[in-house]
């Protein structure tokens, strides 16, 4: 079932090359064509590629779970760390920004505001950085086995998604503990997470392809991520700081709100916190980024499918 449908790749490769005939009768490419042989490495058409990926869904899921399990397998507390890590993170952020820096004056229920932002942002950040390493860090796997390469960035995102589900449990508990009430809006949370996951998959596919050839990306990525963190209003309200305090024009704030990470953070805050003021068009922005990133990401990644593995 995993046979490549090579029509497109053949066309891209400019047809068969004129090799020296080994036995002196006819070019090998023609011999191969006459017997219906296909290029060993060829890019399947996009629908065929998606079908192959669907056939490998068990591998993707098992690979993601296995990575999560093996991550904590050497520690004494084991899988408990999946819960402890987000809890400790939340405690540190609250201590740092809530108590010491005092960023919380104008924002109601700052702990919920901060922790929601942090968890939502961490999900996107870790998916994207994982995706950037997913091809370059798995060359031995790519050089040994056959599977649609998109399975790797996808598995990295699913791994982070599994981690996020645990974080969300911690988040719900914290939000309830900080005097928010459960509302009907909570039913929309899975939809928000789905949209964010679509964006994360797309973004990690793009970075997987870039990271496969651009070695310096892993050095650069932490700085990009930190800039993104500050631009997304994780621990401050963009409207307050950018327009009111810094005196920048309103369009700067609007542009920052339109960036995908900020959009998903704001959406989650709207759903979880009654005191939070909803942004206009927030759903449209979130849906746009999800669809745009997913389709664009798959297309961009698939375009180089046969080149992964050269290093």
């Amino acid at each position: 079932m995993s046979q490549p449908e090579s029509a497109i790749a053949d066309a891209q490769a400019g047809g068969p090359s004129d090799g020296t005939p080994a036995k002196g009768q006819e070019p090998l490419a023609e011999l191969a064509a006459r017997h219906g042989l296909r290029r060993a490495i060829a890019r399947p058409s996009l629908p065929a590629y998606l079908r192959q990926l669907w056939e490998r869904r068990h591998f993707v899921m098992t690979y993601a779970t296995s990575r999560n399990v093996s991550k904590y397998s050497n520690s004494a507390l084991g899988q408990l760390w999946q819960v402890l890590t987000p809890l400790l993170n939340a405690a540190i952020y609250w201590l740092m920004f809530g108590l010491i820096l005092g960023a919380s004056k104008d924002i109601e229920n700052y702990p919920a505001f901060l922790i929601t932002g942090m968890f939502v942002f961490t999900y996107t950040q870790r998916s994207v950085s994982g995706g950037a390493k997913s091809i370059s860090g798995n060359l031995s796997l790519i050089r040994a086995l056959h599977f649609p390469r998109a399975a790797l960035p996808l598995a990295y995102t699913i791994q982070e998604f599994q981690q996020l589900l645990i974080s969300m449990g911690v988040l719900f508990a914290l939000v309830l503990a900080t005097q928010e009430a459960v509302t009907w809006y909570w039913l929309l949370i899975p939809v928000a997470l789905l949209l964010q996951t679509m964006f994360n998959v797309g973004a990690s596919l793009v970075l997987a392809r870039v990271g496969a050839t651009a070695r310096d990306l892993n050095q650069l990525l932490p700085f990009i991520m930190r800039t993104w963190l500050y631009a997304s209003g994780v621990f401050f309200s963009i409207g307050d700081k950018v327009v009111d305090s810094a005196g920048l024009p309103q369009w700067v704030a609007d542009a920052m709100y339109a960036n995908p990470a900020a959009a998903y953070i704001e959406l989650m805050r709207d759903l979880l916190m009654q005191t939070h003021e909803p942004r206009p068009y927030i759903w449209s922005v979130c849906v746009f980024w999800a669809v745009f990133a997913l389709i664009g990401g798959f297309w961009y990644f698939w375009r180089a499918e046969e080149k992964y593995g050269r290093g």
Partner: protein
Amino acid sequence: MAESTEELSRVKAEEPGAPRTDVRVHPAPEPPQAPRTPTVVVDDLHIIYRVYGAATEAEKGNAANALMRLLKRQGRPQMKEVHAVRGVSFVAYHGDAIGIVGRNGSGKSTLLRAIAGLLPPHSGAVYTDGQPSLLGVNAALMRELTGERNIVLGCYAMGLNPQQVREKYDDIVDFSGIGEFVQFPMSTYSSGMGARLRFAIASAKAHDVLLIDEALATGDRDFKRKSQERIKKMREEAGTVFLVAHNLDVIEETCNRVIWLHKGKIKMDGDPKTVLAAYNKG
């Protein structure tokens, strides 16, 4: 669907060589012995690896030098290209068991990976019938996980579905002979046990074109015998087998044709006796 792509590639193949459109009407003469069907065609294959961080003594890898190079626009000097396979062409037919011999670094493993479609060619092409697969799943396994989990993970990585995994599971555990150790992490295994489990997983799937890299028959004497029997069985089931080994006895026993690679080129290609005799002379 298979037919339509075949048609397409046929049409594509004939475009560049316009004067040769008579191929289908008057088929070119086959190799003299018989009308055998080719299963793998390697056409003037070149493979170039990129290796990073291999600076020569003249260009030391410190930051100042790196900056100077950047300013002088000298590109990426730490990146070396290794021309591992340099223009290899041959045709393998159904029923062939081809041994590949050569010194370390002569490009044997690289050639296998290219046939398997895992390494993109720099130029030239590999044409195959069906999907050739490399016998080996080591890269997909995780040392920190138990044998149980690794069996499942390895089977999925090779493309089996859940039902096939359930069917093969007991067989894999039995064949590997690791017993209750299957519940322990692989990092606790002895090297022999690890090798046995890896081979048991890798050989659980049937293949059209089978590529076997050396160093598979590891473990104690009993397991060596068991694994050689299984390779033999897999060879009988597969259409074409490629075998890389340093153990020339194995090649002489199992292959009907030997290719001698030297520095990425074919030095000799023929029946085992002749080639191995020449190879042994150096």
